[in-house]
């Protein structure tokens, strides 16, 4: 681990075989140095006892045995004897050399002794009694000549083909295993898998301490190797079937699922590189070390969001490892350039590393191991898998879920923030795989297409975000040459509107507003006008009334004057006509007179 880092990976002895922390055991154990196997067995194979490794053809028995010897000799200072019944010394050396083991060198330095036992049935005739003392002599000689602590017998069962008398052979095998125990060597005996029993010739009957079963299965044209510790007398061990693979550095078993759910967690929040998205996530972004799923149909901008996230992290000075299963690094860099993301300088500064591989390149386990190796080597703060779904196609549903679980566990243990993009088919947004995977994820962002009005628009929303308040709103997601922007989508009676529909709706609303404003003004003017008219009418009426009132006053004055004049006249005439009708005629005559006047 050259790079400074505080994260602690559980499986980091990828290349070196330094001792994993073995739990306290009663049974003394012998570290194999094989990555993962020592974890499963809780510290290695039983010390000084034979272990049976059985499996079908081509499942890696010989390799496991050879690695046990090579690592013993090279790392633990325990010389070993390889008694090969099937492959010659030359073949063995060549075979393991391809895995980076210098068997020839170890043989030269007398750390490993190879004895090739060649037997053919046709050559041997038997007559009378015999025993296999010759085998014992050879083995003893080999062990003593280099002071071996480890012994591999590969594959002992060949003897059944060459020794005609099975009774003798069986009793001699029993003696051999006893003898190996007495000799105090840790032995690995390989055997071919039998049809009904564990091994073809029932070797398990002699080896009772530890049995490891290897298996090589093909599902959907993809092969997976599995390892299972079937029996381990006197010790706790993982009983599951663990996938393993044969890589450039030998065998690695992946016992990641054995980890409990006890990751250290962080309350630190990290920005996504999209301010509006941060705002949707309680204003601060994701938790460090959390797992994020980004689901979307094709072309919704998953890679863009991922790249933004990557850029933001790298600009903070964090290391980002970007696994791409669809695009080459240069393609991503070019494409992101078009939206204003400059990834290349970050790659040059060593903050961003791309790793591209076609999902069909190799099996799921191989992918996983490759990822683990890359992660262990680069020690990233952020890991992006784009898209995880194409990788999941490489295995069955349960396998791929197991893989994602292990990956997430592994990343969480190292407090690495992980972003997985997931491609869904159009239409059904929540596919089966997502639903299964989502339970493993802390946060889930959904990118979706809205189609309508002859266009497609992207929206983004937060489906879940464990441990933080998050927005329930759908945001429209705009991609321009300046990057990503999130805008509020229009939500109204007619549903969610995005894109030009959102713009159109805005314009429509503006127009409506304007129209109603105009209408109000119109109405106001109308009212004003009416009021003016009314007032004018009122003043006209008033003036009419006033003129009439003036007339009335004038008439009244006239009448008064006339009455006065009449009175005086009547008095004058009464005086003239002896004034006897003074009382009766007075008023009547007066009214008649008034009427005729008006």
């Amino acid at each position, binding site marked *: 681990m050259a790079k400074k880092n505080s994260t602690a990976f559980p499986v980091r002895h990828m290349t070196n075989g330094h001792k994993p922390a073995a739990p306290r055991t009663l049974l003394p154990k012998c570290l194999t140095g094989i990555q993962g196997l020592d974890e499963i067995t809780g510290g290695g194979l039983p010390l000084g006892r034979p272990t049976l490794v059985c499996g079908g053809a081509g499942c890696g028995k010989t390799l496991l045995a050879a690695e046990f010897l090579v690592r013993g000799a090279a790392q633990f200072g325990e010389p070993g004897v390889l008694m090969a019944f099937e492959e010659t010394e030359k073949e063995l050396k060549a075979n393991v050399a391809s895995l980076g083991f210098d068997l020839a060198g170890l043989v030269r330095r007398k750390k490993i002794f190879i*004895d090739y*036992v*060649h*037997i053919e049935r046709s*050559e*041997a*005739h*038997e*007559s*009378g*009694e*015999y*025993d*296999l*003392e*010759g*085998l014992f*002599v*050879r083995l*003893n*000689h080999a062990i003593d000549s280099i002071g071996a602590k480890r012994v591999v017998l590969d594959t002992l069962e060949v*003897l059944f083909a*060459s*020794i005609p008398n099975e009774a003798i052979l069986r009793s001699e095998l029993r003696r051999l295993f006893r003898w190996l125990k007495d000799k105090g060597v840790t032995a690995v005996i390989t055997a071919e898998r039998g049809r009904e029993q564990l091994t073809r010739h029932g070797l398990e009957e002699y080896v009772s301490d530890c049995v490891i079963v290897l298996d090589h299965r093909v599902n959907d044209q993809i092969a997976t190797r599995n390892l299972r510790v079937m029996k381990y007398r006197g010790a706790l061990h993982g009983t599951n079937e663990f996938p393993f693979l044969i890589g450039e550095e030998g065998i690695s078993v992946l016992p990641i699922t054995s980890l409990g759910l006890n990751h250290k967690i962080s309350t630190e929040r990290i920005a996504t590189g999209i301010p509006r998205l941060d705002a949707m996530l309680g204003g601060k972004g994701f938790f460090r070390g959390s797992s994020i799923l980004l689901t979307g149909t094709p072309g919704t901008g998953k890679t863009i969001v991922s790249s933004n996230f990557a850029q933001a992290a790298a600009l903070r000075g964090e290391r980002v490892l970007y696994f791409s299963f669809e695009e080459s690094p240069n393609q991503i860099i070019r494409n992101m350039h078009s939206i204003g993301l400059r990834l290349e300088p970050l790659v040059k500064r060593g903050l961003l590393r791309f790793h591209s591989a076609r999902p069909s390149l190799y099996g799921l386990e191989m992918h996983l191991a490759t990822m683990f190796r890359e992660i262990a080597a680069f020690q990233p703060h952020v890991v992006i898998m784009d898209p995880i779904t194409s990788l999941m196609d490489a295995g069955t549903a349960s396998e791929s879920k197991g893989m994602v679980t292990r990956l997430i566990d592994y990343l969480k243990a190292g407090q690495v923030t992980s972003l997985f993009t997931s491609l869904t088919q159009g239409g059904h947004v929540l596919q089966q795989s997502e639903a299964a995977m989502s339970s493993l994820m802390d946060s889930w962002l959904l990118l979706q297409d809205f189609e309508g009005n002859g266009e497609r628009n992207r929206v983004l929303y937060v489906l879940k975000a464990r441990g933080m308040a998050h927005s329930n709103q759908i945001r429209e997601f705009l991609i321009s040459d300046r990057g990503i922007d999130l805008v509020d989508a229009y939500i109204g009676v007619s549903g969610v509107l995005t894109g030009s529909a959102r713009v159109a709706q805005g314009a429509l609303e503006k127009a409506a507003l304007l129209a109603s404003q105009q209408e109000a003004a119109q109405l106001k003017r109308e009212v004003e006008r009416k009021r003016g008219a009314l007032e004018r009418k009122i003043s006209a009426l008033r003036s009419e009334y006033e003129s009439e009132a003036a007339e009335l006053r004038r008439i009244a004055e006239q009448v008064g004057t006339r009455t006065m004049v009449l009175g005086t006249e009547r008095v004058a005439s009464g005086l003239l006509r002896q004034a006897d009708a003074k009382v009766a005629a007075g008023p009547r005559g007066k009214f008649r007179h008034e009427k005729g006047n008006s």
Partner: protein
Amino acid sequence: MKPRPKTPPASEVVPGKAKPWQLRLYVMDQTPKSLTALANLRKFCEAHLKGRYRIRVIDLLKHPHLAKGDQILAIPTVVRKLPKPVRTIIGTLSDTDRVLVGLDLRSLECP
């Protein structure tokens, strides 16, 4: 290789005939089985190959490294080095017929 000729060369090479048979007997110590095997082998050789054979007895207790050369597993083992091809027979040689077949002595017997 220093196989110890344990027994005196009990063979006289008969000129004119084919090369003498070279037989190796691998044993572990002087166990009864080993001694029986040696005695039986001598008996056969005297009966069928008189004067045309050599027996080397190799004690793996003293020379364990020699076991690898002839691919010895079972004890006792007789290896016919000459004439070619190499033939191997394991056991105390108590089954006469099998020895005759195994060492291909029958062909010599008949004519």
